[in-house]
């Protein structure tokens, strides 16, 4: 039956958005690298755009391979794939190359590979496999602990490599846990901790401690009716106070100097425009100078003349903002939002929990990258070096996002077969 053919089952809308993003990313990489004096073509291999073309072509090969593999492979081999990449993370700590402070690269010939990138889809597979077993309820403490452990292990190994940005991406999988029934309190506590952390940086210790006491007393008065609830609220207040006290310690002993600076920079953007604030200041200038319609393709002065660092990779959005203006930026936001919402729609229509959970993992990881990458370029979040999916220059990241996305499309294409099997 013709309709059984894979090509008719693939969600072409996602594929279309994928190729739109990859192609416009490629054009923007050329624009970011563009130097009117050198005047190299977009295909020149001395340009990032030329190299990116290789990564794009190889990604297409990867897509074909993913589509050819039996869809049951991903479920069956999830733990093995996960195990292999966690092992690679350990190896890279022992043997890898250090690039700008992060020991996370394998050098293969003239190309460098970053196993931490690939660990994203491996972890997504493993988490999906673990949570999808019908005997487990995500509401269980035990399931939750093991679920968390599955992404906390690679997260800690990557922190050990010195790549905090990539490590934080794994934290996004909390969203998956939430979708699968985790108590929302964990999410709320997580957000509260983050807010408290930022408050300690902004307000003085005294004001903060007084506020905590006041909020605790209010909590006791309004919410807590029984002695045990009062005890919980008071305990929460004490823990919050202790946390606030220990942030100083975290700032000076846990965060690295450049990370401390980036946090301080966010709190006071004009603190040091030529030093630590350079990147944020310049990326905002580049985007802000784009206006409504932008300066036109290859006409961006800020990115063209290298005012923005890392402009083909983490700050690729600056090129869009400067050359395509608000309209271009808005279209980019719309494309990502469409992609994410479509993926949620696809995830929700899965019959197999494995495919659904995996789909949500893909959404979480893409969403985290999208949100934090753009937030840092427009000065809403400290600079963490994570790429914009499908857009940023780089083989490891493009491959990872391609694999991540197309495994899900493969699973989606076979969603009816799951039923048949049962």
């Amino acid at each position, binding site marked *: 039956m013709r309709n059984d053919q894979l090509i008719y089952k693939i969600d072409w809308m996602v594929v279309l958005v994928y190729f739109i993003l990859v192609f416009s990313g490629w054009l923007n990489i050329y624009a970011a690298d563009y130097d009117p004096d050198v005047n190299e073509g977009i295909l020149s291999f001395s340009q990032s755009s030329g190299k990116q073309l290789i990564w794009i072509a190889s990604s297409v090969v990867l897509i074909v391979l993913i589509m050819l593999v039996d869809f049951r492979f991903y479920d069956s081999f999830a733990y093995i794939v996960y195990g292999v990449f966690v092992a690679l993370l350990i190896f890279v700590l022992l043997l890898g190359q250090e690039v700008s402070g992060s020991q996370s690269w394998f050098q293969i010939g003239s190309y460098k590979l970053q196993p931490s990138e690939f660990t994203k889809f491996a972890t997504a597979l493993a988490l999906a496999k673990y949570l999808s077993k019908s005997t487990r309820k995500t509401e269980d403490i035990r399931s939750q602990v093991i679920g968390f452990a599955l992404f906390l292990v690679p997260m800690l190994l990557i922190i050990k490599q010195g790549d905090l940005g990539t490590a934080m991406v794994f934290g996004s999988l909390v969203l998956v846990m939430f979708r699968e029934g985790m108590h929302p309190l964990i999410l709320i506590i997580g957000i509260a901790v983050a807010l408290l952390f930022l408050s300690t940086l902004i307000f003085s210790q005294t004001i903060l401690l007084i506020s905590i006491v006041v909020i605790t007393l209010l909590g006791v008065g309004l919410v807590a009716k029984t002695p045990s609830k009062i005890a919980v609220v008071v305990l929460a207040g004490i823990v919050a106070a202790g946390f606030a006290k220990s942030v100083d310690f975290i700032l000076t002993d846990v965060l690295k100097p450049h990370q401390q600076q980036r946090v301080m920079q966010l709190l006071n953007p004009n603190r040091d425009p030529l030093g630590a604030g350079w990147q944020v200041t310049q990326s905002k200038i580049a*985007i802000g100078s784009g206006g409504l319609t932008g300066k036109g393709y290859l006409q961006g002065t*800020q990115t063209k003349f290298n005012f923005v660092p890392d402009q083909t990779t983490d700050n690729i959005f600056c090129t869009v903002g400067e050359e395509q203006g608000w309209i271009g930026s808005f279209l980019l936001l719309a494309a990502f939002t469409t992609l994410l*919402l479509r993926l949620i729609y696809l995830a929700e229509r899965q019959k197999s929990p494995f495919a659904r959970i995996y789909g949500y993992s893909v959404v979480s990881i893409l969403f985290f990258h999208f949100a934090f990458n753009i937030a840092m370029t427009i000065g809403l979040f400290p600079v963490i070096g994570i790429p914009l999916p499908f857009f940023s220059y780089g083989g490891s990241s493009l491959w990872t996002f391609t694999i991540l996305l197309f495994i899900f499309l493969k699973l989606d294409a076979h969603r009816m077969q799951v039923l048949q099997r049962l």
Partner: protein
Amino acid sequence: MNARSFIIQGLILFIALVFSIRLFSIQVIDDDYKLAAQNNILQKIVDYPFRGLIYDRDGDLLVYNTPVYDLMIVPKEVDLEDSTAIMELLEIDHAAFVAKYDKARRYSSILSSKFVEQIPNEDFARIQDQLVKYSGFYPLPRTVRGYEKGILANTLGYIAEVSRSEINRDTTNYYKGGDYIGKVGIEKQYEDKLRGKRGVRYKIVNVQGVVKGEFKDGEYDTASVPGQSIQLTIDSELQAYAEKLLDGKVGSMVAIDPRTGDILAMVSAPSYDPNHLSGRNLSEYGPSIMNDSLKPLYNRPLQATYAPGSMFKTIQALIALQENKVSPNEKIICDGSLIGDHAPPGVYDVERAIQLSSNNYFYKVFKRVIEQGDHESRYIDARIGMKKWNDYINRFGLGQQLGVDIPNENKGFIPDIAYYDRVYKGANTWAFSNIYSLSIGQGEVLVTPLQMANLGALLANKGHYYTPHIVKAIDDQGIIEPKLNDVGIDEIHFGPVIDGMQKMAESNFRVLIPDITVCGKTSTVENPHGMDHSGFMGFAPKENPQIAIAAYVENAGWGARAAAGIASLCIEKYINGEVKRQWLEDFVYKGDFLDERQKRELEAMNKAKKLAAQ
């Protein structure tokens, strides 16, 4: 669909919305980022204009521009490992290098600032080739003033970097830090003509400051407009000669062409070499010049005031004649009893009184001017006379600025009714007996050497003068027409005064020039602080006068000796082009003008001072 799925979808939409709003705010609403982007890529290169040149009346160059280079530093680009080589190249030691480097870094590590200022062309040629090897250092060409002849320092003035207070006072907002501005003299007076107009070029630069092209094809660039050249009325040869004569003395000399009001020479002594206040020399020589107790920066011909002394008698004679209080041939017997006098007792008319400088004659004549018998009270009568006298004096350009085109002209001082009312505390409290020393140019009256040279000019012209000026022509205005002023004395009255001046000149062997008829009047200006000042005012030749002159030499004693010698030599030099009286030149160069009696006086005076000090 699962409820939590909606929460997650809501979160995604919420974030997308936040981003859209934030982007709209920084991209569309806020203009700051567009400005910041322009500032990032635009490098403004100031094109400093060529300052106008200054020529003398014959078209010989006096002031020109000489190139210097400011060495700019961009600290971020400097490779400090090379610093030893740079220190050697610039001939500065380690401490100085570190101090300059730190200062530049405090200003900005990515913007350029001055590292070494005003490297002379010769030195720059030596380091220019080497300089390209060191990153972070750039030369910025500027020009400073050079002085061809080294004369006329006080009048020319000098330029220096504009001060903060000058920038604040500048309502046109032209000046920027680091610009040069005329501080005094002609440089200041004609600043807006001389400075030209700065040009500006916009270049697009990348983050390293490397120029990537012109901004909008140079649409916003403006070319610098060179300053206008100025031609002075100064006769360089006469100026140089007069400066030489006054060398080692304290005083001034002003020579004016009475036919035009052109200032031919204007000397202030002691002076300085104008090259010493130019460029780098300013910091080296400036302080010692500025702190010199003899005040070489003080422009004496315009700023110093003296009692006019006997020169003033010419004015008194003219006023009395015009007022009809004395007739040219009226003989007045003077026995020397009214006021101390060097002139012998005898019968005097205007001519003889001027020639011999009779104090008693002018006492009597001035009394007639002040006490005209218009009122029975001698107090009120004196007021009426004083009012008339003041009206005349003002027209001689005294007690007010003549309006010369050099800044800081002193008005001098002429007492009037209001002044005496103040001094004697009330109206009708003073009469002729209180003010008689005005008759011989002593007392409160003060004049500048320029005003006295102008007196020579108006005597030469028999009743009118052109406002003295030093600028003959400016590029865009051509020759500047001088203003004609009438002093309100009939021409006929000048005859006896001028004849008296001629006789005086002929009877003084240091004034007499064999083939030129000089008319002159010496002055001995009483100086309460030391030896008298020596003064001379006059013009020559008597027919068709070409030069009017005034000279003052401070503390030089008797009139005829110092000032008259200098003035006479200048007249001979200007009219004949050469000086034959070698002996007089030697006398003036030697600078020892006191006779035996004055030397004894000086000794006694110094002794008294010493005693007083003990």
